[in-house]
């Protein structure tokens, strides 16, 4: 069942760029376009993945290594360390109180954690 619903999904170019870039960041090393295709869930055409990787490379967001046709890709990490410092400045400054910062998830209390684990377990067994 899981993932079949993706056939109905509508995804913009920005969304796809984000997914592909985040797959490269989550990986341990450089990946070929075919490996990226698998890493984003396998529901994108190879050509789409390749086109977006080329676009990300042109924008300076990924490095391309090796000969054409057998290239591997890895994310450009230039801003990531600076970003970490700036993020800490933001979070320590109290912006995390939810005034303008929209966090994906907030901290959990014990009851929430138990409820979530139960929900996940039910999912895993289905």
């Amino acid at each position: 069942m899981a993932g079949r619903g993706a056939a109905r999904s509508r995804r913009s170019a920005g969304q796809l760029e984000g997914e592909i870039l985040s797959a490269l960041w989550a990986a341990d090393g450089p990946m070929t376009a075919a490996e990226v295709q698998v890493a984003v869930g396998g529901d994108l055409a190879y050509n789409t993945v390749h086109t977006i990787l080329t676009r990300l490379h042109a924008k300076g967001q990924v490095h391309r290594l090796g000969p054409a046709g057998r290239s591997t890709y890895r994310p450009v990490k230039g801003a990531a360390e600076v970003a970490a410092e700036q993020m800490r400045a933001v979070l320590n400054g109290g912006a995390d109180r939810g005034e303008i910062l929209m966090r994906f998830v907030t901290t959990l209390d014990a009851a929430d954690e138990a409820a979530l684990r139960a929900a996940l377990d039910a999912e895993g067994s289905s």
Partner: protein
Amino acid sequence: MTVAVYLPLLVCVVLAVSSRAVAKALPPRAGLWTLTAAAVIAAAGTVWTCLLLGSLLVDDIPAFDAAERLVPVHDAVSLVGVAILGVGAVRSFLALRRLVQARRRLRRLGALPGGELLVVADARPDAFAVPGSRTGGGRVVVTQGMLRALDAGQRRALIAHERAHLRARHSVALALAELAAAMNPLLVPVRRSIGFLCERDADEDAVVVAGSRRLVAQALAAAALARSASAAASSLAPGFHQLSVAERVSALLTPEPVTHRRLLWAVGAMTLLAAGAAFDATRDFASILVMLVAR
């Protein structure tokens, strides 16, 4: 002065008491903007009420005496009005300063090179949206730790959720709600409900992009558990939001969450009542002032 002058305060109390239940029953997109408008108008009504009450302390002007004869207002009530106004003004100033400071820090983060997705070299799982300027922009900030804690489908849901915040301009609603709650602390629970509706709205947008309610629910659960497993995350005040991830997950695991559009009208009508009451109280007051000037 008629009893209408107290109505905005009554509306604030009703909003405060009902906001949690109302937030769960409202359709997220329309609900968050309706509640935001209600909070702003209720806060403005509070200011107005307190100004009118406070003005009655000025005894020497006949117009105010005349106003007081309609419905007698004890000096103590007027003093409370002045006190509320003072506290609200200080709190609003502090809230505004906090917002401006946070925005400045966020803008620095948002100005770093890269595309819409900004990955941060940090092992602690975290993700949030950084609003752009009026012309758009805005970025999705995600730590490497968060990306590694999620699988491909969950990353898709995360990115879609954060992009939804940017597109729907939720930061505007949150800032307005924060200022309203600073002016009148009765509105703090309303601010929380608006925050909850923003998250629900972004979750539902993520469902459209990811194509599955379960997938978004799993992404939320996985991200939340990864965060709570990371010790450093506990430096945040737990429970500040009180709009729990568990409630969002359970809404997502419901095939079609039941929402009540009629509630939107109820909230809207109540807000109009507050605005109308403030206007009415003002009219009495103004007509007396006009009398005074004409004399």
